[in-house]
């Protein structure tokens, strides 16, 4: 174990979805509310420390 408890090498997961409901688009997964995002991150053991978005996607910097 590192002195700092830190492991550099990341794990990376990419998930793609499809949907037939045009009402879901164009936002799609971006419609997931922040509380639900936090629930996902809780399972991973991370929290959001900073966030930004543009017209295409949302980006979150996470703890760890």
């Amino acid at each position: 174990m590192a002195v700092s408890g830190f492991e550099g090498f990341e794990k990376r997961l990419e998930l793609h979805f499809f949907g037939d409901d045009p009402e879901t688009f164009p936002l799609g997964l971006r419609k997931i509310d922040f509380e639900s995002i936090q629930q996902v991150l809780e399972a991973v053991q991370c929290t959001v420390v900073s966030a930004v978005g543009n017209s295409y996607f949302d980006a979150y910097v996470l703890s760890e």
Partner: protein
Amino acid sequence: SSLFVYPTKIIIKTCGTTQLLKSIDPMIHFAHHLGLTLCSCRYTRGSFIFPKSQPFPHSSFKDEVTYLEDTIPSNLCYRKASIMPSKSSSHSWHVFTANDGSHNHSHMPYDNDIFTIEICMTELDPILARKFFRRDGDGKTGDSAGKEMTELTGINEINPNALICDFAFDPCGYSMNGMDGDWYSTIHVTPEDGFSYASFECVGSINDDIVHALRKVVQIFRPGTMSISTTWNEYNNEMLTKMAKAVEPLGLKCRSCVMDQFPAEANVVFQTFTARRK
């Protein structure tokens, strides 16, 4: 660590002893409520520096694959797991992919001329790594200290068009996400001597100036060891040569290059480099 949320895609990249794969179930659940169904999954990682510290399901690649196999829906039936080796037994690239085979992924993960590169760097130049330590009592927030590091290190010059969201951890460490239209980039840094590490990841097209980005990244960190994993639909040897030639003048020599093919026509090429001084 970073999370990117697109209308039909999420990318989540975490370090430390996080349990990344546990995000799959809740993500499928929340997406389902929006009428969205999982059609493709890709999991990648390098070799852990401290593998024994990793909690289940990250205790081994075998455990990770078993967990993925058990968690993702059965409609994602085209599956493949692979460990791509390098010349060093301690440095391999681990890949798991799954997709449903019935959707046209060509417009989703990778258009033919669009690629994703994942760069992992260790043994960073200690003088350069020092820039990722906070100063005692700097009176700054994580955001403002991060902004200062972005400018001080030249990270803002990798893609001058990108909107950058950066954060400096206390006492050290740094993360940033870049946004340039619909393209993301991300950097994570652990600067501590002895287990220093930095990563750079971005999406780009063959027409982009990837040479400029690669050179900037190498100049910012001066790693002793670096790996580049490139994922795209069409194998492009010219592109790989271009990437190797970009970093060679900066003292890095290509030591290994392996390719593997995955479902949905994705090709992954894993190149490793070490500093000539080694």
